[in-house]
């Protein structure tokens, strides 16, 4: 009996990439931008979103799809700060969101009256880098209580992201964190990475960040 070789040559992510294309088409059809927020746990994604919703919720309709591993805590926190739609995906243990989950979540979003969709990914700097969700851009967050070498330790995520937010800058006087070195490390792995420096707690830097979110919503409309 013969053992035969069958050539396959199929990308493992091919199915996810097809679904991500569907997400992209649906967003394009309604001319809505989507930002995929990725970070390690505790960098401040949820709080940055809370402050963003407070500041922009008056004149932009922002939808949020949150990915939480086991609870709906992030969605509940965001729902307290806005009456905008919050669609939670509880991954049940999975370390990332995939395009199918986002596509399903979008069914509950009224894209016709939405200006921009935030996807708050599961807190993890490794796995979410491998999944295209059909987003306009990935935004990677890290904070000054983490190491300056985070971009070197997680190069794939920093390479895949177009924007970076360095958060908790109010703590800079209290922690041994070299901001210039962190930015240099990030630009070593991705020279095109555009930075925002924020404190979601004090509001520092949020004007620039919110202006950027407005620009994203506007450029998708045009």
């Amino acid at each position: 009996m013969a053992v035969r070789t069958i050539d396959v040559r199929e990308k493992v992510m091919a199915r996810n990439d097809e679904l991500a294309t569907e997400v992209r088409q649906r967003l394009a059809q309604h001319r809505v931008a989507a930002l995929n927020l990725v970070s390690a746990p505790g960098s401040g994604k949820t709080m940055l979103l809370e402050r963003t919703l407070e500041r922009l919720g008056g004149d932009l309709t922002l939808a949020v799809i949150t990915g939480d591993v086991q609870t709906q805590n992030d969605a509940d926190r965001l729902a307290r700060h806005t009456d905008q739609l919050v669609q939670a995906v509880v991954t049940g243990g999975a370390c990332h969101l995939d395009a199918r989950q986002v596509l399903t979540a979008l069914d509950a979003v009224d894209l016709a009256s939405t200006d921009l969709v935030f996807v708050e990914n599961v807190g993890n700097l490794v796995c979410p880098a491998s999944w295209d969700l059909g987003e306009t851009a990935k935004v990677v967050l890290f904070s000054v209580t983490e190491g300056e070498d985070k971009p070197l330790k997680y190069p794939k995520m920093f390479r895949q992201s177009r924007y970076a937010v360095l958060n908790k800058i109010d703590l800079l006087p209290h922690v041994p964190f070299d901001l210039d070195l962190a930015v240099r490390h990030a630009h070593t792995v991705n020279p095109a990475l555009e930075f925002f420096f924020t404190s979601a707690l004090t509001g520092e830097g949020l004007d620039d960040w919110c202006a950027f979110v407005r620009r994203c919503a506007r450029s998708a409309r045009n």
Partner: protein
Amino acid sequence: MHELSLANEICRIAEANAGPAGPAAVRQVAVEVGDQSGVEPESLTFCLEVLLSQPPFGSATPRLIRQPGDVLRVSYLEVDDGRPDD
């Protein structure tokens, strides 16, 4: 633990490409894994060993082909389809 998600997807692709003999006839699943693919090879091997030893597979084993870059794809299958040698 995204290797388990990837292993599930690899098994789906292997099942779809197994041909008339079906997944039970698959003996080996070869996967190209790039060193920048964000995949931990030992973890992926472990997940594939578990999944490929269960129905609808019979006793298939994974073979990981390490490569530079971010490639991650099912390269080929070895299938014992029960037919005599050519």
